[in-house]
């Protein structure tokens, strides 16, 4: 007995539909009741919002295709200008009639032409007594197009005087879409996120046939236990599940454990999943590299993502230049005297030590500094005498090319170039360690 009841559609179709949309039955039944029968009018525009991979596109497509309702499906990221969008809709509309599977290209410049051509198409195709659905996926891109596109689509039913409903699918809430002078408000429908039970049910659906459903369900349980607090995106979880399953099955394949030995399976997979979170989840290494490493049975400890590379091999003076740049960025200029002069005299304690936690420079980001200050600090931290040769200056430029320093402001400044240091604290500490320089002693924030 299907959950969906509709006078218009046969029971078999509805049963088939229900099997294709697990955990989304409520939303599909509300959509079915809103659509009504084929020739009935429905809301002029419907706005469906929900998180990534909460099934909006999939459910919409499945529903419209299974019930064979005349529809046009357009992705607004593909058709990113209004002209591409309007032409795509008209082309798909042409191909709705059965003789002409591939519509010929219809040129359409403006929304005015679109309305006119749309009215013509509906008449020629005999679609007058059925609701035509236009689905715009990734509708947040519509805000970037001309200002009349979004309000125009909201009112399409009124402007063309035809039975058409426009459906917007988006992640972003409607309040951020609304134009300034108002518009025809669409009906907003929320697609709730999947609960952990739903996720388990859907992910267990994809189990490979060689293993039992229970075995796979236990694996999904472990996976969700590690990743659920971080990520609820169904697509990401499915990707991770597919990548790590072979590693999970290894003890069973090698004969060390049977399917029910959960503790051993868990011990095997746990560190592996944690490594996955730092690398594959962040897309720091590709999934093919990940699979290769699993096959080679390499130690997970050797695996490092891109951002974990702690240091770059730099020449001696470049390292000191970088350290000097870091100090110049993160220490305020008035404190240079205290750090870099041998005899800095008495400094008023109160003025100096007053720091608010918020203004800690490590929270606010690096500040720009002039070239002279950089060289001054460099001379004071390097032991032997450094001459300001072209060598030094070219090393500064190569640091800029490596994007360890950034040039701030225009190229030709009257006062000389200003730079900013863009490396993290861990990076600079690693570098300072290689030259035996204790950088923490020289940082104002760690006084």
């Amino acid at each position, binding site marked *: 007995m299907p959950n969906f*009841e509709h*006078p218009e559609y046969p029971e078999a179709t509805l049963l088939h539909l229900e099997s294709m949309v697990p955990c989304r039955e409520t939303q599909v039944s*509300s959509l079915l*009741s*809103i659509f*009504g*029968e084929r*020739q*009935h*009018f*429905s*809301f*002029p525009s419907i706005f469906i*919002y*929900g*998180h990534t991979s*909460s099934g909006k596109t999939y459910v919409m497509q499945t529903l419209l295709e299974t019930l064979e309702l005349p529809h046009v499906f357009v992705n607004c990221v593909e058709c990113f200008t209004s002209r591409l969008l309007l032409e795509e809709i008209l082309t798909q509309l042409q191909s709705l009639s059965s003789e002409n599977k591939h519509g010929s290209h219809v040129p359409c410049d*403006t*929304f*005015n032409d679109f*309305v006119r051509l749309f009215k013509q198409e509906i008449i020629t195709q005999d679609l007058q007594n059925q609701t035509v659905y236009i689905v715009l996926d990734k509708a947040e891109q519509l805000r970037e197009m*001309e200002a*009349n596109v979004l*309000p*125009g689509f909201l*009112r399409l*039913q009124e*402007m063309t005087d035809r*039975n058409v409903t426009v459906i917007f699918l988006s992640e*972003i*809430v*409607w*309040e951020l879409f609304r134009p300034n*002078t*108002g518009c*025809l*408000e669409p*009906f*907003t*429908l*929320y697609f*709730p*996120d999947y*609960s*952990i039970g739903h996720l388990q049910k859907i992910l267990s659906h994809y189990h490979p046939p060689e293993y039992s459903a229970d075995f796979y369900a236990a694996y999904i349980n472990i996976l969700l236990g590690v990743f*659920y*607090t*971080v*990520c*609820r995106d169904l697509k990401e979880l499915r990707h991770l599940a597919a990548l790590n399953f072979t590693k999970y099955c290894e003890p069973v394949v090698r004969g060390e454990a049977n399917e029910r030995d959960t503790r051993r399976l868990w011990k095997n997979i746990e560190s592996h999943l944690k490594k996955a*979170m*730092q690398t594959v*989840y*962040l897309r720091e290494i590709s999934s093919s590299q990940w699979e290769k490493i699993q096959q080679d049975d390499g130690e997970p400890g050797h695996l490092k993502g891109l951002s974990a590379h702690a240091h770059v091999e730099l020449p001696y003076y470049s390292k000191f230049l970088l350290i000097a740049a870091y100090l110049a960025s993160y220490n305020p200029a008035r404190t240079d005297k205290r750090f870099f002069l041998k005899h800095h005299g008495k400094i008023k304690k109160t003025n100096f030590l007053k720091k608010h936690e*918020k203004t800690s420079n490590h*929270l*606010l*980001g690096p500040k720009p500094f002039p070239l002279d200050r950089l060289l001054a600090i460099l001379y004071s931290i390097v032991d032997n005498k450094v001459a300001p040769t072209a060598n030094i200056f070219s090393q500064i430029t190569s640091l800029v090319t490596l994007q360890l320093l*950034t040039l*701030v402001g225009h190229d030709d400044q009257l006062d000389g170039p200003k730079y900013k240091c863009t490396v993290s604290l861990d990076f600079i500490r690693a570098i300072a360690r290689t030259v035996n320089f204790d950088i923490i002693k020289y940082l104002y924030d760690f006084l």
Partner: protein
Amino acid sequence: MSKRKSKETSSVNGECISQVQRILRERFCHQCPNGKLFGVQLQYKHLLELLKRTTIHGESNSALIIGPRGSGKTMLLNHVLKELMEAKQVRENLMQVHLNGLLQTNDKIALKEITRQLQMENVVGDKVFGSFAENLAFLLEALKKGDRDSSCPVLFILDEFDLFVHHKNQTLLYNLFDISQSAQTPVTVIGLTCRQDILELLEKRVKSRFSHRQIYLMNSFDFKQYLRIFKEQLYLPAEFLYKPFTQKWNKNVQSLSEDRTVQDVLQNHFHCSKDLRSLHMLLMLALSSITVSHPFMTGSDLLEASKSCRMDSKANIVHGLSVLEICLIIAMKHLNDVYEGEPFNFQMVYNEFQKFIQRKAHSMYNFEKPVVMKAFEHLLQLELIKPIEGLCVRAQREYLLMKLLLDNNQIMDALQVYPNCPTDVKQWATSSLSWL
């Protein structure tokens, strides 16, 4: 025997329900001109008089219909036009040109559309005109048919009038109003707009040619009238085929309007927005639950519809975030409380999060910085936080200043309903900073 009879009644019901749905859906979604008007009798008379003077007596005029969105401007105009077209003389002579600010985004397109609607494409042919004014004058001159010595009256209807004001030099408006003041052809220009300050947007020369006749539609009905409108909108018309069903339906509507819950629902709705369009949305939603097994609307249908119309969408989005993202939002809330709403960057939020992990968290694993960064960027993608100056390439991503687009009440409400929220996270959210 009884089985056959019940089958007949159920099939009658199925067809009957389908017809009910058809009629009511057309009324709510498509605003057919057969519906009734409410509370705008004065404005209706005014507009009808105006248009009669143009079409029958040959006077030129201009007027603006001003009212907030959904107050019934287009519906009023359509009703007036329908009554006007009942006179044979008007039907044969009057030419209508419907322009819309959303469709005709500049004057060239507008002129082509006017030519098309007056069906003058053949007459104009390939002629090239010097200016807009010449073109328009030619079109109106050509409207004189054969032996008539006077032109047919033309009615220009400009929807979304406030968008025409932004065209270059307001050429179209200037010419239309100019013709309505000076030319021999009886021309009436009616503009519909939702902006009350529309007159300030008009240029001086355009404003002086406008007759300053304004018709206001201000949704000026009180709750008792609103209840009456609710009833009228739900009544089935007397011509409906299935007479016994019509009686039962209308009686049900009457009893609904006297029901306490329904009145509360309508009262809430009335306080939020008075206009008829939102009432139509509510009724349409309630209507969609009418089936053969549930043929009469109940108070709970309306209650359900009202709830789904008034959900807080941001709270729904927060409901679907992962625990790490919720922790970041709570960290941002604390930063906002301490520093009174000043913008923050990722480094500050991460710092707060670290403080929580080190001191209070038992259930949260200490995630690596890039993982936290990915969660932060997900929040950015959902537009729950927004950078202050737009994303610039030069600054590092961790130090870009942002602000949070949720306020404290929304966050606390969302946390109450968040599924499986770890208790230490909840406690962190409600704690003041005295433990810092």
